[in-house]
């Protein structure tokens, strides 16, 4: 991934729906065009966060497997 995140949320070891709520909170605070990255160990978030990004019309940059966790990256487009 060569996109630099403007906001990084470390929600590792936080349970559902914590990571998704953290991502939505970051989305509210971010400016249009900014990139938000969230780290999570919660399995459900891997499915729910992209679903939220799609439903809210934001851009999903990617879901990446990392060492013991995964990273979801999105761009706020509106």
């Amino acid at each position, binding site marked *: 991934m060569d996109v630099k995140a403007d906001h990084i949320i470390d929600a590792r070891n936080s349970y559902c729906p914590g990571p*998704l709520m953290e991502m*939505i909170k970051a989305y*509210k605070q971010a400016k249009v065009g900014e990139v938000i990255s969230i780290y999570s160990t919660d399995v*459900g978030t891997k499915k*729910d966060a992209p679903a*939220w990004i799609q439903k*809210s*019309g934001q851009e999903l940059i990617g879901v990446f497997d990392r060492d013991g966790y995964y990273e979801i990256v999105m761009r706020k487009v509106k």
Partner: protein
Amino acid sequence: MPARVLILGDGDAGTIMANKLRFHTSRKDVEITVVGNSKNHYFKPDGVHISFNMLDYKKSVKPTEFLFNYGVNYIADTVTAIDVANHSVKTAGGKNMNYDYLIIATGDRFTPEDIPGYSESARHFYNLDHALELQKELKAFKGGKIVIGQASIPIMCPPAPYEFTFLLDEYLNFHGLRDKTEIHYVYPINSVFTIPNVADYISKKMEERGIITHTLFNVDSIDPKNKKVQSLEGESVDYDLLVMIPPHRGQKVISDSGLADDGGYINVDKNRLNYKDYDNVFAVGDATNLPVSKAGATAHFESQYLSNKIAADTSGNVYNELYEGDVACTTVTGYEKGITLFFNYNKPPRANFDSKFDYFLKWQSADTFFSSMVRGIA
């Protein structure tokens, strides 16, 4: 000289904590003081039934000061500042109180101001006044579109929105209004409840009953003039009656004292309930940001752990047990239908079948609560 235990808050968590600790310690070893400002203790889970006039609300309210066991000092006052570094607490009444152990049980508060338009149009049943107001609205309701939801996560008693939804379905059927009413249920995440297997069970029942669900619906604003709820995700649902649990935050004094996260809740150790590196500052009940339901049933198990720990500490013993996130919660899934959910951090609850026994357990739970649970007996 006895160890001074100071408990902030006189709701479920503060009261159960004080009474349990009194059972587990002698007055020679431990002095227990509770500071709170509630004139009455309202048993909130009854709000669902009170909305449908299925319970006499007078049974759900008791004077706070009479709920404490002999040997618990109760001070009716409001906490204005907490200084954990100097082991002191200030109150609006001018008291400056010191402690050996501090237990924060200040609960949460409603923040309707977080959602534009909320106060002008939304109804809920999370306190007695609103439950009675909603009861009047339901009596006057002649059909249309009812939208039920919650304006934030977390909220107290997470099953309450679905409990209300199922009882509403049966209430409308009973009054011959179901075929004239659309019921819409909106929920912030990608399912109808936060715990996956309970969500599957609830979702299936909603589908069977013709309840229309909208998931990933985070309430952004409410337009009272045009009667529309707008989500952050761009979806809009109109309504004739809106039953929306208000946004919650932790108490302001917790944030003002520098103890809170963004939501106003206290970050405590999930197994030991202590705040940061302090071994004499704890939080129980809704005031914590633990990944567990905000409910009296949670406070009950947390208080069990913490009263055992403090009893051991103050008598020179070692207590090696941990709090594992235990919760036991009885919820309504329809008229004379209920399920009891037992779970902890590592074991999710089972939700397999409705039980009439569980329904009545919930329906009369104020009696159980006031006669034993709040007294620290159960």
